[in-house]
C-alpha cells in the first residue's frame, strides 16, 4: 500500500508543472479580479507556488538538508505578514471609499 502510494508520487517535473500552473493561476487572478481581497488571494497563490518550489527542490535534490523547507516556512510567515498589512490598508481604505474594487481606485492620478 505504502509502496503503491509512493509509486504514485509524481516526479519533480510533474510537481513543477503543478507549481507553474498555480503561479500562472495566481497571476491570472491578480490581473482579473476586481476585488482587492481577491487580488491579494491570487497573489498568495503565487507566493505559495514559490514556497512549494523550495520544498520540492529540497525534497528532490538534497533531502538530507532542510534549508528549502525552512525557506517555505519563512515564506508562509512573510506572506501572512503581508496579508495582515494589506488587510489593514484595505480596511482603512474601505472606510473612506466604501469599496475595494481595484478598478475604482484611481484617485491618485491627475
Amino acid at each position: 500500500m505504502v509502496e503503491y502510494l509512493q509509486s504514485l508520487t509524481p516526479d519533480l517535473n510533474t510537481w513543477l508543472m503543478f507549481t507553474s500552473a498555480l503561479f500562472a493561476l495566481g497571476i491570472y487572478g491578480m490581473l482579473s479580479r476586481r476585488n482587492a481581497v481577491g487580488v491579494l488571494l491570487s497573489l498568495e497563490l503565487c507566493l505559495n507556488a514559490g514556497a512549494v518550489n523550495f520544498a520540492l527542490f529540497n525534497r528532490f535534490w538534497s533531502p538530507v538538508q532542510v534549508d528549502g523547507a525552512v525557506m517555505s516556512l519563512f515564506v508562509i510567515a512573510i506572506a501572512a505578514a503581508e496579508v495582515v498589512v494589506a488587510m489593514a490598508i484595505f480596511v482603512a481604505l474601505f472606510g473612506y471609499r466604501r469599496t475595494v474594487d481595484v478598478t475604482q481606485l484611481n484617485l491618485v492620478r491627475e
Partner: protein
Amino acid sequence: MPDLSFILSHAWLIPALPLASFLLVGLVLRPLHKPLAGAVATAAVFAAAGLSWWLAFDYLHLPKTAGGALPVLVPTSVEWLRFQEGLSVHLGTLLDPISVMLLVVVTTVSALVHLYSTGYLHGEDGYGRYFTFLNLFTFSMLGLVLAPNLVQMYVCWELVGASSFFLIGYYYDRPSAVSASKKAFIVTRFADLGFLLGILVLGYYAFTIHAGMGAAAAGQQALDFAFLTRPDVLSQLQALQGQFLGIGTLTLAAVLIYTGGAGKSAMFPLHIWLPDAMEGPTPVSALIHAATMVVAGVYLVARSFPIFAASAEALQVVMVVGAFTSLFAATIGCTQDDIKRVLAFSTLSQLGYMMFALGVASYEHPLGYTASMFHLFTHAFFKALLFLGAGSVIHAVHTNNIWQMGGLRKYMPITHGLFLLATLAIAGIPPLAGFFSKDEILAAALHSGHTVVFGVGLLVAGMTAFYMFRIYFVTFWGERRLSHLHHQDDHSHDDHSHADPHESPAVMWIPMAVLGLLTIGAGFVPIPEWVRLVPLDGKLPEAHHGVDLAVAIPGTLAGVIGIALAWFFYAGDPQRANSAVLKLGRFYAVIKAKFYFDEIYLFVTKSIIFRLIAGPIAWFDRMVVDGLVNATGWVTRLGGTAVNASQTGQVQTYGSWLMSGVVLAVVVLWATTRQ
C-alpha cells in the same frame, strides 16, 4: 642703393603727419577748440605737402638705373601682419615715379582743400569731425599710394573708402546724404570683394611660387609688388595651368583686382555711387571724388601693370570698360542740371579715359601707361579746381542747380576766371594741362592700333568740351536766375541767402588760384619723361616726346567744336536748347535719368536681395529652423504625455506592464545569452 637723403629714407613721415594730426584732432582738439582743430589739421597736411615736394625733388635727382629709369626704392618696411612665413604684410613705403607723382598730387590737393575747407565750412557744427576725417582720408590715401604690397594697398583702400563714407555722410541728418554715403560704401565694398578675391588668388599662387623659389625670394614676401612683378615670377604665373570657367589663373586674378579698381574708380557698371557722392561737402568732392581717391583704381592697375601686361585679356577688359565708361558718362553729363553731378560725370568720363589709356598700353606700346599717369596728374589739378570753383559758386548761391544760377561772372570774378581756366583745360585747349595729357592718351590709342578707341576718345573729348561749357555758360553767363524757393544747399547760411551772391573769401580763392597755376603749369611738367613703363629687361628705350600734330589737331578741334556747340545752345537764346531737348524726346529723358541704372540697382537690392532672399531667410530661420527646434521640444512633451497616459491608476494594468516586462526580459536575455 645709394645713400638716401633724409626725406627719402623717412618717407613714412609724409603719411604719419596726417595720421598724427588725425589722432590729435579727433581725440583731443575736436571737442575742445574747433578752429584750432581745423588749423592743426590743415597745417599737418601742408607740412606733408612740403615734405612731398622735397621728396619729389630729391627723388628726381637720384641716379638713374642702368636701364635709364628712375629707381624703385622701399626705404621702410616693418612687419605688420604675419599670415605665415613668406606671406607677411610689411607696412612700408614704395617710392617709384608714379607713387612720388601721386604723393605730390595728393598732398598738394589735400592741403589746398584743407585750406579751402576752413573757409567753406566755417562755423559749422561738424567742423572738427570734418577735419578729423579729412586727415584720416589723407593719411589713408598716402598709405595707399606708398603701398609696397597688395595688402597694404587693400588696407588703405578700405580706409579711404570708410573716410569717404563718413565725409559723404557729413550732413548726417540729411537723408539723401546718408543714403548716398551708404551707396558709395556698399558699391565700392562690393567691388572690393573682387579685389580681395584677387588677392586671395594671387596670394595663393604667388605664395606657392615663393615657397618654391627658396633663397631666390629671400627678403621678399609673396604679395609684395616687387615680388609679383619680377619677370621670373610673372612667367611662372603665366605658365599656370589652372583654369576657372575657361579663364586663365593670371587673367582671373588680374580681372578680380581690376574689379576693385573699377569700383573705386567708378567704372561702368559700378559708377552709380559717384554722382550720388556729391551729397558730401564740395571740398570733399574735390579732394576725394575728383582728384585722389577715385583715381586709386587707375593707380592700382598702373601699379600692378606688369601683371596686367602678362594677360592680354585682362588689358582688353580694362580698355573696353574704360572706353565705354568715358563715352557713357559723357553722354549723361550733357543732360544733368546739378553742377556737381555734371562734374561727377565728367570725372567718370575722365577716369574712363585714364583706364582705357592703360588698356591700350603694352610693353610694345608703352605710351598708354605714361599717358594715363600724365592725365591722372593733370586731371587732379583742373578737376579739383572745377570742384572748388563749383563749391565757391554753391557757397555763394546755396543751390546746386545750374538753372538757378546764371550771370555769376559779374558777382564772382575770381571764381569765374579760375573756373573758365579749368574748363578750358578739361576741354583740351592748348596750352593748358588737359591738352597735353589728353593728346598723349589719344596718341597712345592711335599708335597702338586701337582706332575705335581713338575714335571714342575723340568723340568724348568733344562731348567733354560741350557739357563743361554748357554748365559754364549757364552758370556764369546770361541773367541772374537765382531762386529762393528751394535750396539744396550744403549748409545753412540763411543770413546770406537773400543777399546778392558775392565772391568767396580769400581762404577759399587762394587755394583755387594755386590750383589754377597748376592747371596752367602741369602740362609742362615732364611727367612723360619720368613716368615710363619699365620693360621687363629694365632697359628703357630712348624717349621721344613731343606734340603729335596728327592727334593734337583733331583733339583740339573736337574741343573747339564742343565749345562752339555749347555756346550755340546755352550762351544765347535758351529756346535753342529747349527745342533740341524736345526733339530728342524720350531719348533725352532716358539719358537724363542716367539710363535708369539707379532704379535697376534699387530693384536688385530692394526687391531681389531684401525681399526675395533676406526676407525669406529670416522667415525660414524663425519658422523652419527654429520651428524644428520647437518641434523637438513639442515632440518631447508629447512623449511625456504619452508616458503619462500609461499611468492609468489601474493597479492591474500596472501588473500587466510588470509581467510584460518579465516576458521581454526573457526574450532579450534569451537573445543575448550565449548558451
